[in-house]
């Protein structure tokens, strides 16, 4: 990927905004179990970071995808996993389908404020009995004239307690399986909607995760994103954006983790020399650095293909699978090389170890990535 001087200017902007608006507050937000999404998103929106690739008519920046790569890499350098995930939900997980398929009215009312940071968005797909198996969702939207009447439960929803609207996937017909689903913009001030509980998690603690309840909640049929009955397909396309940004963030996070670990091992002495003087440590770090570089350039190839308008399902699937696995391996080694200090809550690497674990589960588990690859590569009997 060719990064120009413009990309570097933009990278300085992202780094500067995050240094001012996010970094100084991470410890407090982690302790409190949530971050102030509206406040942070308003600052990011003012800097034009929330709608990079979107239509300027709705407040987007009209940038090419390579700038999303820069954004993701810099988000990965934040000292926690929760805030980057929450921002990515707003930019690349809850809004792509609305931008791509939504009506002008819907985009004016919900997308434009989300890009300004005036509204917080969530992606509501997962349910108690359907996570990676999206075809198993049971939340229903039954038509009553011009209104959807929605009932069901969504689980593990990022930004769920703070969201102003959800990109909701619900069943809108009795067809079953992959058919008969629709994406609906669901405003969270709709009567019948409630946040069931805020969930406590292994990591990503600064990001709120919620269970959401819908009890005969009524929203206009006009809130349907794109075509009624095409929700599954639209969501699958949206997942590609999710998996790409997740990979870019992971590349930034892993690069930062190696840098921080090397800096620590250069200072930390054992047996009369810096720990970094041990060839075993050097070789392990060199191997990890090489793997991160391979992933980085695979991610860049994916981004270039996406920019050319190609279907990046296979690219994004492999990238996210390998990013998740490498992050687990790398976080484990970074923690190991920190010794006892690494096991302490007060050391950054323990948080990285916890937060990084999600990547192999969220946005489609590793095993679902493998199923997709088996299908794409014709590996079935």
């Amino acid at each position, binding site marked *: 990927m060719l990064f120009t001087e*413009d990309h570097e*200017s*933009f990278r*300085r*902007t992202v780094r*500067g*905004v995050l240094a*001012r608006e996010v970094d100084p507050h991470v410890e407090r937000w982690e302790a409190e179990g949530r971050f102030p999404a509206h406040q942070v998103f308003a600052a990011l929106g*003012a*800097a*034009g*970071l929330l709608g*990079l690739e979107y239509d*300027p008519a709705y407040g987007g*920046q*009209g*940038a090419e995808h390579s*700038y999303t790569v820069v954004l993701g890499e810099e988000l990965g350098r934040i000292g926690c996993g929760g805030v980057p995930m929450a921002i990515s939900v707003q930019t690349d997980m809850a809004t792509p389908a609305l931008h791509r398929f939504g009506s002008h009215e819907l985009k004016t009312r919900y997308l434009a404020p989300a890009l300004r940071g005036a509204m917080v968005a969530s992606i509501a797909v997962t349910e108690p009995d359907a996570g990676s198996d999206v075809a198993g969702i049971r939340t229903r939207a039954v038509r009553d004239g011009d209104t959807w009447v929605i009932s069901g439960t969504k689980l593990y929803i990022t930004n769920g307690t703070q969201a102003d609207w959800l990109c909701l996937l619900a069943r809108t017909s009795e067809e079953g399986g992959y058919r008969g689903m629709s994406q609906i913009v669901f405003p969270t001030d709709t009567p019948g909607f409630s946040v069931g509980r805020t969930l406590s998690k292994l990591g990503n603690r600064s990001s709120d995760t919620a269970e959401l309840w819908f009890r005969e909640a009524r929203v206009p049929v006009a809130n349907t994103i794109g075509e009624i009955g095409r929700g599954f397909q639209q969501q699958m396309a949206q997942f590609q954006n999710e998996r790409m940004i997740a990979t870019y963030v992971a590349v930034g996070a892993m690069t930062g983790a190696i840098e921080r670990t090397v800096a620590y091992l250069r200072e930390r002495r054992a047996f009369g020399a810096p720990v970094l003087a041990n060839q075993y440590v050097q070789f392990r770090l060199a191997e990890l650095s090489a793997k991160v570089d391979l992933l980085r350039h695979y991610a860049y190839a994916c981004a270039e293909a996406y920019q050319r308008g190609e279907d990046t399902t296979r690219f994004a699937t492999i990238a996210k699978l390998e990013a998740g696995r490498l992050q687990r391996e790398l976080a484990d080694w970074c923690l190991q090389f920190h010794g006892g200090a690494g096991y302490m809550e007060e050391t950054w690497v323990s948080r990285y170890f916890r937060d990084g674990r999600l990547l192999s589960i969220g946005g489609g588990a590793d095993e679902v990535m493998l199923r997709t690859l088996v299908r794409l590569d014709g590996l079935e009997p």
Partner: protein
Amino acid sequence: MLIAVCVKQIPDPASPGALDPTTRTLDRSGKLIMDDSDSYGVELGLRLAEAAGGGEVVLVSMAPRSETGGLRTALAMGAARAVLVSDPALSGSDALSTAKVLAAALRRVGADLVLAATESTDGYTGTVPAQVAELLGLPSVTFAKSIALEGPEVVVQRQTEAGYDEVRCPLPALVTVTAGVVDPRYPSFKGIMAAKSKPVDVLSLADLGLGPEVVGGAAAGQELVEVRDAEARAGGEVVVDDGSAYEQIVEFLERVKVI
């Protein structure tokens, strides 16, 4: 409302700086960026222009090799255009020569208000803005923490050791802005792209009607005769507490006038 902001383009402080062994001045042969201390003036200028409705911010700079890297950053923040003076004869200019050049450029711009940082973060003389004001015959207000425009006057909260003074003076005027008094905006992607097509008027000394005899190293009234490394810091004083350490600490704090 036309607001001019003086912007210095300096070597990136993130990279170790070097001195030219011949001239003993800062090596400016590499890439230059906007001096961070100028970003506050740019931000205040943009806010004043926005508040005035229809105002415009013009950047004025002097740099070697027609360098515009730092100006593009300020243009990406929202400034409308830039005037850059670049001429090989300017090499080695001291603070007063720099002020003469900036004053000549500012005279062409004809701004209602001129903003500058209190000092640059590479040269640190802190004298150029006042010299520019004197050369232009403008009132000079220094160390502003806030600036407001009220009709034909500029109202400045001027930082002092005790707090701040409120200073009013008629326009046109030159005001220096203290670093850190405002959060400068970061250029958005749109801003970065728009900056590429904003005009930068590159002027030579001849364009300004200045002869080489008034600027450059030969005309400098100051001479750098020697550059030495700063002395290494000595180790601190260790006070061993025998029960009376507090007395020594109090005495020390009184001596350095902390208490």
